[in-house]
């Protein structure tokens, strides 16, 4: 039941995407037309916290975030696997529930392992 019945979902998704791009583009265009422009050397500096910035900013950064990203990957793929099951859960009944319980048990084991290894500790 679409807003307008004749259009396919793909076209509508493209329309929405183009609307988003158009919104940003149009607003930037208006802003460029009516906003003042001035140039000074100091203005082009990075603001950061108000005092002159030191050193390189695009650096290799804390690996703590990286570990959580890897953990996320595992569990996000898990949730992707669970979605189809969730949709047909009713027709599968208790036997399907048992199968998924085994799948989840393995994953929870994985989480427990990560927990035990200290991967969930922020350092």
């Amino acid at each position, binding site marked *: 039941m679409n807003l307008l019945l004749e259009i396919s979902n793909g076209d509508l998704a493209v329309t929405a995407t183009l609307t988003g791009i*158009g919104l940003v583009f149009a607003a930037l265009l208006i*802003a460029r037309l*009516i906003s003042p422009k001035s140039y000074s050397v100091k203005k082009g500096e990075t603001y950061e916290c108000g005092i002159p910035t030191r050193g390189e900013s695009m650096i290799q950064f804390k690996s703590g975030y990286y570990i959580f*990203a890897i953990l996320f990957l595992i569990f996000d793929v898990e949730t992707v696997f669970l979605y189809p099951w969730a*949709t047909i859960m*009713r027709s599968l009944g208790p036997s399907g529930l048992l199968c998924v319980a085994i799948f*989840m048990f393995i994953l929870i084991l994985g989480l427990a392992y990560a927990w035990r290894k200290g991967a969930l500790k922020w350092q």
Partner: protein
Amino acid sequence: MFDFSIITNWFNNLLIGCMPEWAAVLIECVVIGVLVLLTYTVLALFYILYERKLCAWFQCRLGPMRVGPWGLLQVFADMFKILIKELISLKGTDKFLFKLAPYIIITSSVVMLACLPWGRGLQIIDYNIGIFFVLAVSSVGVLGILLAGWSSNNKYTLIGAMRSGAQMISYELSLGLALMSIIVLAGTMNINDLVWAQDKCWFIFQGHIPAIIAFIIYVIAATAETNRGPFDLPEAEHELTAGYHTEYSGIHFGFFYLAEYLNLFIVSGIASLMFLGGWMPLHIPGWDGFNAVMNWIPGIVWFLAKAFFISYVIIWFKWTFPRVRIDQLLAFEWKYMMPFALANLVLMAVCVAFGLTF
């Protein structure tokens, strides 16, 4: 309930009658685009005022009062002000990524907005994997924030972006699991079918205990997902200046602001659709008179009222709880929320498999 597809069908037939089909589709797409744009802007303006007024009341202030009656025109003044600010181009930024970031953030929130049904037949994108599609698009938004933080050539924005990335991907898990327990209950991912399945009784009542737990988990995860409330570490102003959008000026900054408020509406809208019946009025099985009275209230009003109520709760969080630390934030998600959400999913599955739902 009024069926909006009557209007859209009439419009469609009108166009088909006087032009070839491709032209009709093109015009309809343009009309949809304009409507989405208007809705997006109006909602953003409403939410800015809503939050400012609420935060003022929580702090025993009046909030904006000067511009217009009761400060109602304040947001228009704000919008105009932000449009006429200079767009400063900085040295040392990665120009392409710096400009790409607002596009990604705004586009992802516009597509999500287009997926929400506001009333019967009043929906734009209607995939049969609807809710999954919304979740998928919502994770694209993280990319925009990461790009914004990285390309700014600023250490604070980098920290803000990294925090935001870690936070949003982590809480996405419990968000997805909470929604999944409702999908188990409903047996469909199509948002429209989900709403229709709540005809007799909203899911939060149908699923009783597991649904209520899922709702609580969802609201907490949604607060974190929108970088708000006690979880606003990515833009913690006392530590990181303004977080990942420190270096953006004028309307460039405005885009992040806009997307933040729209994301607040979208997560509240999804909560309203998945747990509180969306545009479906409050129906109590057996009370026919009561149900008939409730049907008199239009679907849009129901949907928006529920969405605004949940937004109110999320804004309430923001002005009540102190900000958490990053280690507390991640530990809370991985050690409490995620295992709880998983256990709750199993509980819901058991309830459904053995017919323990209403």
